[in-house]
Each structure stands twice: as C-alpha cells, then as structure tokens.
C-alpha cells in the first residue's frame, strides 16, 4: 500500500493545476464553448506544450512515459475545471487503442502526432442498438479492394466531429454479440464513405454519429490482429472508466467546495445557511461520498494495469458503481444545497452536475456494472 506520489507525478499535477487555474475559469470556458469545435484549440496547444497529450505514451513516441496514475492526475484537474477538450477521446481512448493494439509502425506514426497536438483521435465503437454491451457490433468489415470495406454506423462517438482519425470497430465474422470476430480499424475522418453528424451532449461536450458506407481500409490500418480486437476494446473501455473516475473526483471536489463556499456566504434568516445543522450534515455526507468515490477512482486507476483480466474487470466494475453513486449523490446535493441558483444555466454547479450525469452513462451505468458484479456473486 502506497498513496504517495513521486516527485515527477507531483510536478505533473502541479503544472496542470496551475494551467487550469490560470486559464480555465468558468467565464473562459463559456468563451471556449463558442469556438467552432466547441472547445479551445488554444488550450489544446497548451496541453501539448506541457506534455499532457503524451502522458501515457512511451518516451520514444514523444510521451511522458506515464501510466494510469499520471493520467489520473491530469483527468482530476480537467474534471475540476470541467474541461471541454477531447483529452479523453484522443489521449485516453484513441491513444490506448493504438498503444495496446497497434503495431510498432502504427504507434510510431500516430502517437508522436497525438503528443504534439497535431492529430486528434476518436474511439468509434458504440452503436445505437448495443446499449452497454461491448461485444454487440453490427458494423461489418469485409475483404475487398485489397484490404477491408466497412459498413455500418457508430453512435455517440465522443469528439467524433473534430477527430482527424477514428478507431472504428467492425465485425469480421461471428454473430452480432460474439466477442470473437471484431476488428479495430484506423479510418481517416476524410475517408470516402465516412459521414459525421456532430452534436452537443447534455454536458456541452461534443459527440458525433458516424456512418460508414463502403469505407475502404488498407491492411496496414488494421489495429492488431483482424478479428481478435475484443480484448483491446475492453482495455480501452477500462482505461476510459478509470480516467473518467478521476475526472468525476475532480468534478465532485469542485461541487463540494462551491457548495461549502455558498453555505458560508448565503444568508437566510439572518445567518449563513451553513450554520444550520441540517446543511452541515448534508455537506458532511457529500464529503463522505466524495472520499468513498475517490477511493473507488483510485481502485480503477491501479486496476487498469492489473494483469489478471477477471480481477481487473471486477475491480473496474466496482469502481464504476462506487464513483458513479458518489457522483450522483454529490451532484444532486450540490444543486439542492444551492437552491434555485443551482438550477440555472448561468451558474457553474449545474454544468458539473451534467458532466457527472454523462460520465455515469458512459461505458456502462451503475445498474449495468452492478448486474455484472451480481452475476459473479459466489
């Protein structure tokens, strides 16, 4: 057991904290939202300058050589600031797919460009009818044109509208929900037959519906072994769950501190509302939920690199349930303790609330993961 950060890790955390404190206030964020992609290209450049876009990549790929803990530190700060940029989509999801599934040549071609900030990725896996079932893939990949031809549609692809390259899953063989027979393909956003319709999610981050009509993919753009990509997809999703856990902790911290501050300054009946025991206890309960959620986000982080797939999946599910329930409680209470102002678009707390809501519904909600755990009860 060891909860200490190394010096390098502390430096990393400090530098992100400082960047976000200087540049990512709630007003600045409103301006970022109005930019064409719905996030800040200028901030993206700063992330690149600080090395954040290469945090989990090897040094030979222009990365920081970090692991899940380093990603956690970055995501926690992005969560605190409610950052809009495609960090999860590009570095965590797309990056992990290439890092774990790609050949040496693919990694060398893609990861340095991601780290530099010149290439944005998206993980185009989910489909409309799949809900949270990771093996439910109906998009097809068939041999043709001396490579592969993809047909189908992908749904709620995070930052799929602004990505330069998409990591697309497609079925090569097998039944609709067979884990075996799924491949991952690198597809340029401008590829013929690929169409994207971008939109805003509830939390103001961007996503896209992606349709693929006879999209040709060369053999060199298949990630890993064609048809055996499912374990990589699981790892990508697990890594995403861990990263979102850290982001949720950051968001909960901000909601907690905003609510605490509000309870000290908002006066009713001639005294701060925080002098009422009922409010004090609610804030204590938020604190407890936050700390339990933090513990679970840590569990997800340390589990990502666990070599035992069953143990890893179990801990990731536990973590998703735990931090999801914490985030739901903290965010609901944050609005309740603020009263009417918490309900408004102009005030920040509701925006954090909506980010927590989106996180909870990504890669399996509480009910999904709880059911998965329940199936394993012995």
């Amino acid at each position, binding site marked *: 057991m060891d*909860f200490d950060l190394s010096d390098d890790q502390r430096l990393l955390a400090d530098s992100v904290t400082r960047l976000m404190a200087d540049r990512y206030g709630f007003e600045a964020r409103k301006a970022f939202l109005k930019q064409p992609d719905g996030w800040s290209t200028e901030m993206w450049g700063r992330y690149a300058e600080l090395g954040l876009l290469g945090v989990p990549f090897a040094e030979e790929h222009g990365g920081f050589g970090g692991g899940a803990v380093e990603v956690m530190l970055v995501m926690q700060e992005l969560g605190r600031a409610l950052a809009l940029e495609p960090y999860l989509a590009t570095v965590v999801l797309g990056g992990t797919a290439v890092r774990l599934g790609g050949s040496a040549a693919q990694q060398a071609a893609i990861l340095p460009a991601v780290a530099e900030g010149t290439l944005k990725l998206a993980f185009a896996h989910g489909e409309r009818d799949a809900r949270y079932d990771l093996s439910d893939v109906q998009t097809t990949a068939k041999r043709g044109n001396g490579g592969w031809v993809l047909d189908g549609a992908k749904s709620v692809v995070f930052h799929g509208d602004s990505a330069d390259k998409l990591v697309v899953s497609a079925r090569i063989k097998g039944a609709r929900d067979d884990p075996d027979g799924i491949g991952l393909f690198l597809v340029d956003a401008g590829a013929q037959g690929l169409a994207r319709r971008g939109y805003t999610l509830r939390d103001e981050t961007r996503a896209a519906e992606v349709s693929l009509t006879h999209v040709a993919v060369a053999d060199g753009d298949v990630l890993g072994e064609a048809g055996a990509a499912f374990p990589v997809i699981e790892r990508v999703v697990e890594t995403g769950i861990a990263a979102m856990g850290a982001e949720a902790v950051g968001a909960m911290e901000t909601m907690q501190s905003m609510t605490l501050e509000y309870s000290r300054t908002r006066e009713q009946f001639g005294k701060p509302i925080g002098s009422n025991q009922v409010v004090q206890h609610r804030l*204590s309960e938020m*604190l*407890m939920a936050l*700390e339990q959620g933090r*513990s679970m986000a840590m569990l997800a982080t*340390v589990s990502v690199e666990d070599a035992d797939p069953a143990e890893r999946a179990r801990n990731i599910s*536990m973590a998703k349930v735990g931090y999801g329930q914490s985030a739901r409680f903290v965010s609901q209470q944050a609005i309740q303790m603020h009263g009417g102002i918490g309900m408004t678009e102009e005030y920040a707390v509701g925006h954090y609330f909506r980010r927590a809501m989106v996180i909870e519904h990504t890669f399996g909600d509480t009910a999904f993961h709880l*059911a998965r755990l329940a199936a394993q009860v012995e």
Partner: protein
Amino acid sequence: MDLRFTPEELAFRDEVRAFIRDNLPADIRERMRLGYSPRKQDVIAWQRILNRKGWAALSWPKEWGGPGWSAVQRMIFIEENQAAPAPELLSFNITMLGPVLIQFGTEEQKRRFLPRAANLDDWWCQGFSEPGAGSDLASLKTAARREGDHYVVNGSKIWTSTAHNADWCFVLVRTNPNAAKRQEGISFLLVDMKTPGITVRPIISIDGAHHLNEVFFDDVKVPVEMRIHEENRGWDVAKFLLGNERTGIARLGKSRERVAAAKEAARAVRFNGKPLIEDPTFRQRVAQLEVDMKALQITQYRVVSAGAKKSDGRPDPLSSVLKVKGTELLQSTTELAMDAAGPLAMPIWAQELAEMANEPDMLAEAAEQAAGNYLFLRAASIYGGTNEIQKNILSKAVLRL
C-alpha cells in the same frame, strides 16, 4: 500509488489467518460462526491465547507487551480476527485503557494494571455516559469529593457495556463543579467494581440480551492513587482515549463476516423454487455491499496510511468517515443476513430447538442470531459517538463550518 498489500503484509495476513485457524478453540469457533456473541469465558480464553502469542496488546509499545506492529498490520489483524469470526480483543482493555495508562499513567499504575489488562486478568468497563450526559459527555454529573487520601464518588453511569463482567471500571467524574468551563472540572478514576457502594443493574437491549448496564455509585471510596493524570484534567484523558486508535472503527471484518453468513444461509434456503443465492435481487444486494466494503477498505487504507505518517498524535477527522460509513455498512450487512433468514428471523426458540430435535438445527440457530445481530447493531450508529456527532465533527474539523 499502490493499493495492494506488500508481499510482507500478505505473508503477515496469512500468518494471522493460520494462527486463528489453528488456535481458536472449536467450540468458540462454532458459536461465533452461528452468529452468537462470545461468552465471557470465550473472550477471556481467546485473549489469553493471543496474549501468549504476544498479539493481545496490539497497539502498545513492545516494553509493555505489544507486538511492535505497524498500523497496517494492526488493521490486518483486527479485520482477520473479526472476519474469522473470533471474539474481538476487549477494547476497554486494549484500545482504551492501555494507551491511556501508557500515555498518562504513573509507573506504579502501569506496572499494576497493564500486564493484567493484556491478559484479561482484569476485565475493564467504561464509565462515561450518564442518563443526562450522552452525546454531550462534558455535562456529566457523577461527583467525586476529595476526603483525605480518597475520593468519594456519587452518581450513576449508563450504557455501561459488560459492567456485569467487569472487575474494574475507568470512570469520568466531576471533581470541580465550579470550574469556569465544564470540561475543566473532570477527573479520570480507576474504580474496583468490588468496592462497597457500587450497584450494577442490567439493561436488556432490543435483542433480548444483556450487554448493557446502569452502574450506581453510592459513597464509593476510591483511593487518590487511582486517579489518572492530574485532578480536573480528566477531559484531556477522555479526549485522548476517544481519539486514539480508530483503526478498528470501520469494523470491516465484522461486515465481511455478516455477508458471508448471509450467503451461507442463502445457499441453504429456497426462494421461488431455487436457492435464494440464485435470486437476482439478493445477488444485487450482495454485490452492492461488496462495492461498499471495497470503497471503505480503500478509504481505511488511506486513513491508516496517512495516520502512520502523522506525528502530531491527533486523530484524523476522516476517521469519522470510517465510523459513519463503517457502521452504516455493518447495519446493512446485518439486514441482509436477517432478510436471508426469512421467517426463521422471527422465533426466539434456542431452548426449544435444543429440546425438539436430536440433531442441532444450525440453520435455525444462525437465523435467530442473524435477527439478534440486526437488532443489537442498531446500536452501532449510536455508540462511540453517534453518527450525527461524527457529522458534527466533520462539519467543524474538516469543513470548518
């Protein structure tokens, strides 16, 4: 960052498990497994076995018989011992009085009481709460009047767990009723339960059992050398005692044990034509509790690990999180075990069961105890500072409200 135990800690856990497996007397093990509270003789027998091994005085320095364990090792031992399930070390002796004597006691007091406390030659109880002083402990009224080399104690204490088993009691008394602050007129006395003028009256709790008592003091003479620390400075001692060593406060091992008991029952009973353990709703409850146990376990690691690095000796206010979440969890696990018992949770029939059949009906016995545990552990969110008081502590000490 690493949440796993080190190989050394894993080896230690295995050593503890093996020792408990090989040394816990079979009859005690069987009763504990069925969910019974350990009897007085069970608690004494097990603590003496542990003391012979050098493990009883778990948080004491080596010179007073402590095992020299780290905070993590103590946490592992407590959890394994609860989960076994084995009788817990008598907390009055080990986590309350012992550290107080080591911190505040005179050499004579230490020599006289510490070895006997470790070996449970003396059974201690805690005389803190009074009818008019529950959560507001500093309003206590039991008075000690100085007469020569004695104090004369008058008043009453309540909720005194195991006073009916106890040889000695550490008692908070008011020695200066005129102090400027209520906290400044309190002293900490050690009282021999055989002293004339002490009456112990049982309080039967809602589980039908006798854990609690009222203790009356009627002109009870206590020698001055039985006072710990200075006169009127007993509040310092009480604060130290209440803040000291909260490693076991989450009672995770007990929660683990209750979930295991619930699962065992659920394998034996049927629900909708199948074993209850196969019912999705039941499994979902188990899964939720397992998630909650995991979260609490990691939070406990964090508190213990931070505590091991702190040097100011003050309790981590986050241990209030462990108390609240731990007791909520424990209560949920007792609900699960009781619900698994189904209609067998209703009867009080241990005597009749024994007479009705030749073979012991373990399912029925365990069910009866599952209900008993559920009933008695409603106290978990009340004792040791109610969960509402813990939230007050968090509000003040952490949130600064």
